[in-house]
């Protein structure tokens, strides 16, 4: 019998090694898998490459991993917010590397990673600082940039409801990066509010199919924006 549910977040993240690449869903606090992030802060894996749209919007997102000195490199579109100070300090010290990607390019690089496409051309970012050093090609007379796929060793995602196989349903704008990140990691861990039996979710409403989800953790409560790192 398929059983993807882990007893708690700590057990679900226990095997993450130093140097792993981690995709973290969410847009600020909305759709953020904050229990999985908190468990990884506790677990302590270091030298992580973390891919996540917003850095510093909330204290219990990727900012907590940065503050705990677990991150070597960040790939994101929006590294600004009330909890970005530790990122700025580490950038100035040179202990962390930051790669800023346009949000749509970031989403498509992850989609490509999950879809087996190694790279693609996009007009976004041409003739800008973010396009410098990238391969270019003209299509219909317009400059495009070659962008490379992103794949994770692990993805942390948040969904509203799962069945035992890992079929997922989201809630409102909580969806954001979660479905695309679920496709692009060797091990996708979904934090959900509720786990139901197979067959209880209407197949027409399933957004992420069980093939993309490897581990399930039931969240103990909704995201409350609580501080997980001593400030």
């Amino acid at each position, binding site marked *: 019998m398929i059983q993807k549910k882990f007893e708690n977040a700590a057990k679900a993240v226990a095997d993450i090694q130093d140097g792993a690449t981690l995709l973290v869903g969410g847009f600020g606090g909305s759709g953020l898998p904050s229990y999985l992030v908190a468990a990884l802060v506790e677990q302590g894996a270091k030298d992580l490459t973390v891919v996540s749209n917003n850095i510093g919007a909330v204290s219990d997102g990727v900012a907590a991993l940065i503050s705990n000195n677990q991150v070597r490199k960040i790939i994101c*579109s*929006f590294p600004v917010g009330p909890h970005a100070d530790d*990122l700025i300090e580490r950038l100035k010290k040179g202990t962390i590397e930051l790669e*800023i990607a346009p*949000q*749509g390019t970031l*989403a498509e690089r992850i*989609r490509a990673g999950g879809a087996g496409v190694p790279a693609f051309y996009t007009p976004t970012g041409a*003739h800008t600082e973010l396009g410098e050093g990238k391969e270019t090609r003209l299509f219909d007379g317009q400059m495009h940039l070659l962008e490379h796929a992103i794949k994770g060793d692990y993805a942390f995602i948040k969904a509203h409801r799962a069945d035992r196989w890992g079929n997922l349903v989201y809630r409102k*704008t909580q969806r954001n990066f979660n479905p695309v990140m679920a496709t692009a990691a060797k091990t996708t861990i979904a934090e959900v509010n509720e786990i139901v039996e197979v067959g209880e979710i209407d197949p027409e409403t399933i957004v992420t199919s069980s093939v993309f989800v490897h581990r399930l953790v039931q969240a103990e409560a909704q995201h409350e924006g609580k501080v997980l790192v001593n400030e």
Partner: protein
Amino acid sequence: MSKDQQQVIGWTMPELASRVAMDLEDGWFVNLGIGLPTLVADFIPEGREIIFHSENGLLGLGPKPEPGEEDMDLVNAGKEPITLRPGGSYFSQSESFAMIRGGHLDAAVLGAFQVSEYGDLASWKLPNATLGRVGGAMDLTVGSKRVFLFMQHTSNKGEAKIVEECSFPLTAPRCVNRIYTNLAVIDVTDDGLVVRELAPGVTFEYVQECTAAPLKLHASSDMQSEALKVQQ
């Protein structure tokens, strides 16, 4: 008028939001960027159906919720709680940016640090800043059928934001169609910047004084804005 009076003259930001909304046509899909552009969601002109897009994965963005009705799983691009209008839908980031980059949106209303007389936009990074915050701005400027800017005419320090050439890092070159400021509505044309409309009590000469690029007056317009007819 001197430049330090600029904050109290011309349109207020909600008035400007309703002025922007007047130019959005029935049936358009329109992205609203972070900050001032989100005000436009409160002003759909009567008799029109306009569907607002939020880059984080939503069509049908509505006004702010009543106090106590906020749902942090229902937020706009600025992560502020919003509402969903009937007919609205949710989708993932890759689908949201397929709509944007794929040319499916009729317009994007965005903020700006600087815009050049050719429609070059700088909106994501200040010069020599450690961090930039690009978000979806580069995708929106490349993919939307029209790019409208919603901004104060000058910076907080009174510096011109409409310039001959952007000195800040570019979001995209040659992408802006129209600029809405507290002082005027200005089109970016092949013939340069053309003032289409002046805010009440604002002269063309004053707008030119606050602008670091040459402006032209639109020939056929009576220029002074009529009372705003858009219903909140």
